[in-house]
């Protein structure tokens, strides 16, 4: 099987230092270290497990800034075979419409059985781009997967989609696009040999001209949405610290909840 995993380098939320650029309110991607988007790591882990079980290889596709290769190497170190990065100055500030078009364009010339995407990204948080890509490419779309079971001989794949009451078991022919969730299992840590091997893996960089993103213009210049400004939310009130024996502490908490009319 050949599986494409969509990955996005995002600011490391653990650093707590993300900020917007004051001039255009775009995310300041230079300000702090980037990491592979956490949900994409779950997608990658799922893809790696599938190729380990069924053979084949995992290929990364990303649309990101020129600094992305360092971050993509981390994903290659986990076990992906190669990667393609679409990067272009014109793409800075792209909105959801452009992002879906560009990624669909990058996928259009590739061969694959499955495309896996993370449920959302920690920076944009939209969670709508994968559905857009599937729509543009006319791929079967299977979202919120807790389990993925391909049947390569039949050319089909089954997915347990999480619903409020359990799961829908979906079946589609391949190629298909699947949105992965954390329920698929914890991502592996790259091994040292994986890291060394990643340094010589192919990471192809493509410009906008190299992919078939369609006739409509894409990129920051034609963004359909714009940020007007930002402000810090009002700070929460000071924390009340209770250091009492359990019974007294419980009494004070219940009293507090009653005062706030929560109970």
């Amino acid at each position, binding site marked *: 099987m050949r599986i494409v995993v969509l990955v996005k380098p995002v600011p490391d939320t653990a650093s707590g230092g993300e900020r917007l650029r004051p001039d255009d309110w775009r995310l300041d991607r230079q300000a702090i270290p980037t990491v592979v988007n956490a949900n994409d790591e779950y997608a990658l882990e799922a893809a790696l497990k599938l190729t380990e079980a069924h053979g084949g290889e995992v290929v990364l596709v990303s649309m990101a800034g020129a600094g992305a290769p360092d971050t993509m190497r981390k994903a290659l170190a986990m076990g992906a075979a190669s990667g393609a990065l679409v990067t272009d100055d014109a793409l800075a500030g792209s909105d959801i419409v452009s992002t879906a078009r560009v990624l669909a364009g990058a996928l259009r010339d590739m061969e694959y059985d499955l495309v896996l995407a993370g449920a959302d990204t920690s920076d944009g948080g939209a969670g709508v781009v994968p559905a857009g890509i599937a729509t543009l490419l006319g791929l079967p779309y299977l979202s919120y997967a807790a389990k993925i079971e391909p049947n390569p001989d039949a050319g089909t794949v089954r997915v347990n989609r999480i619903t409020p009451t359990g799961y829908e078991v979906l079946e589609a022919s391949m190629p298909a696009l699947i949105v992965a969730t954390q329920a698929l299992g914890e991502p592996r840590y790259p091994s040292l*040999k994986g890291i*060394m091997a990643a340094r010589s893996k192919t990471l192809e960089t493509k410009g906008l001209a190299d992919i078939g993103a369609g006739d409509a213009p894409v990129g920051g210049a034609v963004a359909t949405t714009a940020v007007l400004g930002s402000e810090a939310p009002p700070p929460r009130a000071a924390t009340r610290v209770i250091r009492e024996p359990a019974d007294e502490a419980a009494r004070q908490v219940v009293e507090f909840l009653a005062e706030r009319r929560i109970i």
Partner: protein
Amino acid sequence: MASSTPPPASSESHPAPTYRLTEDQLALRDAVRVLAADRIAPRAAEIDRTAEFPWDVKELLASHDILSLPYPEQYGGLGGDLLTVCLAVEEISRVCATSGLILAVQELASLPLLLAGTDEQKDRWFPDLAAGRKLIAFALTEAEAGSDVAAARTRARRDGDGDGADWILDGSKRFISQGSVADLLAVFAVTADDDDTPRHERLTCFIVDKDMPGFGVERIEHKMGIRGSPTAELSFRGVRVPDANRVGGVGEGFPLTMRTLDRSRPGIAAQAVGIAQGALDVAAAYARERTQFGKPIAEFQMIAAMLADMDAQTEAARQLLYKAATEIDAGAPDASRWSAMCKLVAGDTAMRVTTDAVQVLGGYGYINEFPVERMMRDAKITQLYEGTQQIQRLVIARALTARR
């Protein structure tokens, strides 16, 4: 003293190698750091409390190829140089000194094979060692032969005539790190004790398999620190060892131990630097968060000064370690001196910094709710093993006077 002498002679005899961590080294270091912080740090307190060898951590190090670092690529290793191995030991020891020692001991005990082993021996043992399927320990020290290595009493005698005859080992070894969990042991035994043989030509190195009849673990020591790393007393009662397990020539064991220790002491220095950094991490975080008299204690000058000294000393020890490892990797003729200096400085630094970390945390530093008391106990061993600090000074002083 040599206060007016120009810088070390090494720069005269060969070009001084410079170091700057390569991208590979940085990538490997960062990967080990993340793994250690996420997967080993949460185990550290329990490993210390139970004093049980952390097999899960050993598996973790094996599955992520960390144990393969010291071995050549042809045996499934990563062919890491000494500096890279030290980076890994440092990062692991930053969160758990016991776990850091797993790699340090694997490297130490493989060095006789790396330095003097035949291709056949390397083929036989390195793939399993590099994959972490087998552990190896270094059995040199005896109850009466600590710093005085050549005073060893464990004997090996030929069973029969001829060059290929088996050897029979008798004796005991003490303070053997991981001696009870290792599959293989690099054992140094006396093969000639007649008065005609000089002391430094009496020892020979053998690889003993734990399954060989006559080998036994007598007891495990109760220790102050690195409690998860079993320190064993081993006995050899007529253990039959094939001549094919002899590493290096007969009588060449003593110089082999010296060459081994030249390359292994930086591993202990790395463990020490890691322990110091780990304690500094905790102390600095605590000082920022702990409020007394209405402000974080980090803002009190006496605490700030302590933290500054801890940081400066740790960094100084680290840079000496990296330089020493670089010199040794480059084949410096005064490897012993670099090796002894980095362990001396790093060991003392670890002891001082961890002690100060306990001080910064006050009463909290003295109880096991915080890891600094463990780190302080762990630090002490770095001043003792693979040559006490006194031995390191001796080595350094000898190198100094030998230059004349």
